[in-house]
């Protein structure tokens, strides 16, 4: 079963205006790497950028297994920029 991935506005702008993706992924890392904005969410080492938060059904993946967090299907994955900036 697919998961739903929701993007914030800047990332949606970079994805051609699309803020909702449905895709098949076994882990959070697979889901993020399948996005057309993967290189904005992950750095060149493939690590989640420090100020990008990823929530699976409301739970921060950093409190689980990070990018290795498994997905069973049916979850909603929300990407959120941390509260930072000027």
């Amino acid at each position: 079963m697919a998961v739903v991935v929701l993007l914030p506005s800047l990332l949606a702008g970079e994805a051609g205006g699309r803020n909702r993706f449905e895709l098949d992924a076994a882990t959070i890392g697979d889901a993020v790497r399948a996005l057309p904005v993967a290189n904005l969410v992950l750095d060149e080492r493939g690590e989640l950028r420090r100020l990008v938060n990823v929530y699976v059904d409301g739970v921060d993946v950093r409190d689980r297994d990070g990018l290795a967090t498994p997905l069973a299907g049916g979850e909603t994955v929300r990407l959120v920029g941390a509260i930072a900036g000027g």
Partner: protein
Amino acid sequence: MSVVVLLGTRKGLFLLESDAARREWALEGPHLPGWSVFHAVVDPRDRTIHAATNSDVYGATVHRSADRGQSWTRAEELGLPEESGLTLEKTWHVEPGRDGEDGRLWLGCAPGALFRTDDGGETWQPVEAILGHPTRERWHPGAGGMCCHSIQLDPDEPERMYVGISAAGVFRTEDGGENWAPANQGTAADFLPEPFPDVGQCVHKLLLHPGRPGRLWQQNHCGVYRSDDRGESWERLEGNGLPSGFGFPLALDHRDADAAFVVPEVGAENRVTCDGRLGVYRTQDGGSSWELLTDGLPQRAWGAVMREGFSSDRLDPPGIYLGAQSGSLFVSADAGGSWLEAVAQLPPILSVEAAEWP
């Protein structure tokens, strides 16, 4: 023919357009909303706009537009190799290659990195000789990070180019980027124990005069300098009309290799324009003397102009463009003699580049 000015701001890219008189300006944008545009430039070879774009959250990248900002494509491959132990922090400056070097551009980044593309900006490869430079352990970041902000190509010698990195100094290659020699003799680093080291200088902006290729100018953390020998030696130029040697921006007059423009600030610990005004200082004698230009500029201001916030065009007389942190762009259509405020209340301006548009 029109003149298009690219204004990179903390919150996107704006375009201003005028005819050759450069008195009435039409504003367009913002493009790339949400991105901090550290620098944007029109590649004169194909009219593609390239923008060094940064986000506090989503990192550093480069966008390009082949349709004057209507649509944008992001670089696919841009990062530092794992063995370097470094990750990309910021993109700072895009420099198009020469005529005949199709698809080649250069990109200056932090931490102390130079990239090259040969496919018009789709993929960027780091220049290994900068990344692994033998003096690198003596480079240190300035307040803006360890940024490679100046890239200058010799118009006549295809293998010769220069970069400026803060705080590493000026480096010159004579072999297309395989080897880089420090070019800092005579430039001060007052913040280091040894005031005249071979590397470690905090160059703020470096420009090569297009009509006299051996002549370089630099605005440094510690003074304004001119070199007439490709950076082999430098002459310090303040104390003869300049109120301070500290500042960031620098602009040149393409017609006259002896002319340069700077916007001095009080000093490193008080980074505001001198004497409570926004003053441009111009030399027309190679830096022997400097005159204050104020006609049309704010007479009461404690401003700041970023290192990329000042540039000139190639018309005759050249237009000079000054983008302030206050969000105003000031334009002089007569090489600095008089100025007008072309636009105000933009986000803080980070970069200014002017291009002729057919």
